[in-house]
């Protein structure tokens, strides 16, 4: 089977999973205890307002008769699959869900991007260093650090770090370091001004504004460090083991005997083979970002998707919840497929036939 038909097959197989997950979501949202009317108007509401809301939500027809559940179900699925997410009712009254999500997606993506980067930049080199110099002082230090980071409860670390930076703790100087930035909360416009137009040879080109960029990175870094902490430890540990395993293998010895330079051995043989067990760990970070961003965003007061999810769940905002779950589940499935494709690229022994 060629790579493309494999991808196609995986995509087709993902559709039933998505449909089923959305069906469960529908059942929870529409058959469960959530009542949008009390969520919007409170316990004492005007019956005509309530009727209007039910009409708007598609629960009741124009003539006042209730819409049968299967029609609601079809409507729900069709709307999600055509990316027509409808309006939010509770979180932000009468704002379209797409706008709402679009406004909040930037901080979350920024946070996720940097937590992956921080984990990779710190974890991988440390793990490789430890694996290339086993049983030295540096190895013990790195391994111990990796184990400690991995066991650090995420939200606890977040509380301590946020406290240390904002409440006059020992890291208070971080706020005014180099440039004054806000660390807790979402500073307005930091991410929107990342790009500036620069006239280059008479053509306006978007360029990264260095000051704003630095400010934005500095703002997100503590949160990203917390979110990436456990993956950092994992990457370090598994990277170390993987390097140790390949460095003692016969082909590395052969290469060394042939006189291949040690840099080439590491980059050509060790690195690529060590990536095989590392891949699921690195990809696993993306799942972590979907789930873990909720707590970190709450503690660091970042106005992103995780917080939107929490407020939608507390506020019983059915439309926002449906859209967010659709996005979460789709992203998980896509990451699954990407991971399997990357597997076949890194490790040619993994065939397309098996699963």
């Amino acid at each position, binding site marked *: 089977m060629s790579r493309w038909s494999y991808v196609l097959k995986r995509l087709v197989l993902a559709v*039933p*999973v998505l449909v*089923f*997950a959305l069906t*469960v*979501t529908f059942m*929870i949202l529409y058959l*469960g*205890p*959530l009542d949008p009317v009390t969520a919007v108007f409170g316990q004492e509401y005007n019956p005509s307002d309530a009727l209007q809301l039910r009409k708007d939500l598609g629960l009741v027809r124009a003539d006042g008769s209730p819409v049968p559940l299967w029609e609601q179900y079809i409507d729900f699925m069709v709307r999600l699959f055509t990316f027509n997410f409808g309006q939010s009712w509770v979180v932000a009254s009468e704002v379209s869900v797409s706008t709402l999500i679009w406004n909040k997606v930037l901080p979350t993506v920024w946070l996720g991007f940097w937590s992956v980067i921080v984990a990779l930049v710190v974890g991988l080199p440390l793990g490789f260093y430890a694996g290339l110099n*086993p*049983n030295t002082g540096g190895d013990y230090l790195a391994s111990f650090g990796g*184990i*400690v980071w*991995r*066991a*650090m*409860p*995420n*939200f*606890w670390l977040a*509380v*301590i770090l946020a*406290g*240390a930076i904002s*409440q*006059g*703790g020992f890291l208070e100087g971080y706020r005014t370091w180099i440039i004054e930035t806000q660390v807790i909360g979402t500073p307005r416009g930091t991410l929107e001004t990342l790009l500036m137009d620069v006239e280059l040879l008479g053509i306006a080109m978007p360029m990264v504004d260095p000051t704003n960029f630095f400010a934005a990175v500095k703002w997100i870094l503590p949160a990203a460090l917390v979110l990436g902490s456990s993956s950092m430890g994992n990457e370090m540990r598994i990277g*170390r*083991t993987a390097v*140790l*395993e390949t460095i*003692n293998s016969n082909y590395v010895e052969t290469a060394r005997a042939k006189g291949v330079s040690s840099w080439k051995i590491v980059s050509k043989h060790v690195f690529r083979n060590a990536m095989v067990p590392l891949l699921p760990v690195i990809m696993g970070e993306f799942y972590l970002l*979907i*789930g873990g961003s*909720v*707590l970190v965003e*709450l503690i660091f007061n970042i106005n992103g998707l995780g917080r939107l999810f*929490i407020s939608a*769940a507390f506020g019983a905002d059915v439309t926002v*919840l449906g859209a967010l*779950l659709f996005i*979460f*589940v789709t992203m*998980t*499935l896509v990451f*699954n497929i990407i991971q399997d494709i990357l597997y076949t690229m890194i490790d040619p022994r993994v065939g397309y036939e098996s699963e």
Partner: protein
Amino acid sequence: MATDTDPDRIERFEDIDWQATEMRGGLSAVSRKAFGLLLTLAAVCVFFLYDYYLVRKRKPTVPVIEWDVSQVDWMFMVTLAVIFFYVLLPLYENPRMTRYYWREFRKNRAAVFSGGFLLFVFGTGLVGPLLLPKPEIALELGYQPPVFTSVSNNYPIQCVGEAANGRCFGTFQHPLGTTGRGKDIFRLIVYGMTVSMQIGLITGLIIITIGTIVGAVAAYVGGLADEVLMRYVDIQLTFPTFLLYLLLIYLFGQSLFMFILVFGVTSWGLIARLVRSEALQRTEEEYITAAQSAGAPNLYVIWRHILPNVSSTVITAVTLLIPSLLLYEAGLAFLQLGDPSIPSWGQVISAGRSDLSFAWWISTVPGVFLFFTILAFNFIGDALRDALDPRQTTQE
């Protein structure tokens, strides 16, 4: 022999009457455990029915020690019974293997320390609540610092220890200090140990049971059953459990019971996958073919040959899964989504969050305990993996 000339006689294996084998097994050493477990479960059942029908609501089940048995306590009793009959008893009955395990285990010093710490947490969590009174709110005793430390006199309303130079010093009355509302942190920690152990053990047992059954059935039966079960696992792994939990607590209120149930019933996906791939390898082996050729029933093969062979993988995986469950519970408690009536470590961390600038101990102390518990589970899980899977060894 006369049969040699019989043309209808076909070469065949010795007949085994499987029913008789199972009957005999019913009285042998293996099923003495099952019998003991059943007896204990029956006793728990009788106790439960007594509590359900004869004791009025909100009245203590055992009045002498004022113990009103909760839903989680029932599950915990069952879990302890299973652990006793299927972990401790076999270890006791087979001292040679026990000594062997202990020798192997002792080689990893970090794992021994971790095991000791977890046993300490387990024992304290089991006995502590019987000896110590529940932590109570006492507003005038808020913000007492831990022993040997001090806090500015502005914060505690009343200083239990000695007050000098405008600072209030901690006492042994509250060795780890108190929260802003005057709850003693030492007692909160001890009660939190019970909660953590209940989460770890009960959820672990649920996950092991469902995951192993699903994985073994999928691998051994194969075909449509395999396909359906594994696609279901796919869905379960993509669906956010958090939302399910949120909706169920809307419906039934926040409780530890709900947490254990929801996360136990939805977290076995990875274990099932692991068991399936492991069992698929085992199914290829000769002893399985031998058992099948001799006409052993499927259930017998799964129970006697496949399960014992995958058990080490499962135990390792669950040991590494439990810390994430503990973290999850603490995280939910932190979001005020946990059981408000049960002092979990996450709740205490959350309570001390806004006071971090002066009362550092409220968030830090439970955080340290949570951290060490998770660390210990990780160490033991890694040690088990190193011991059981030589490919993964970290020592060269």
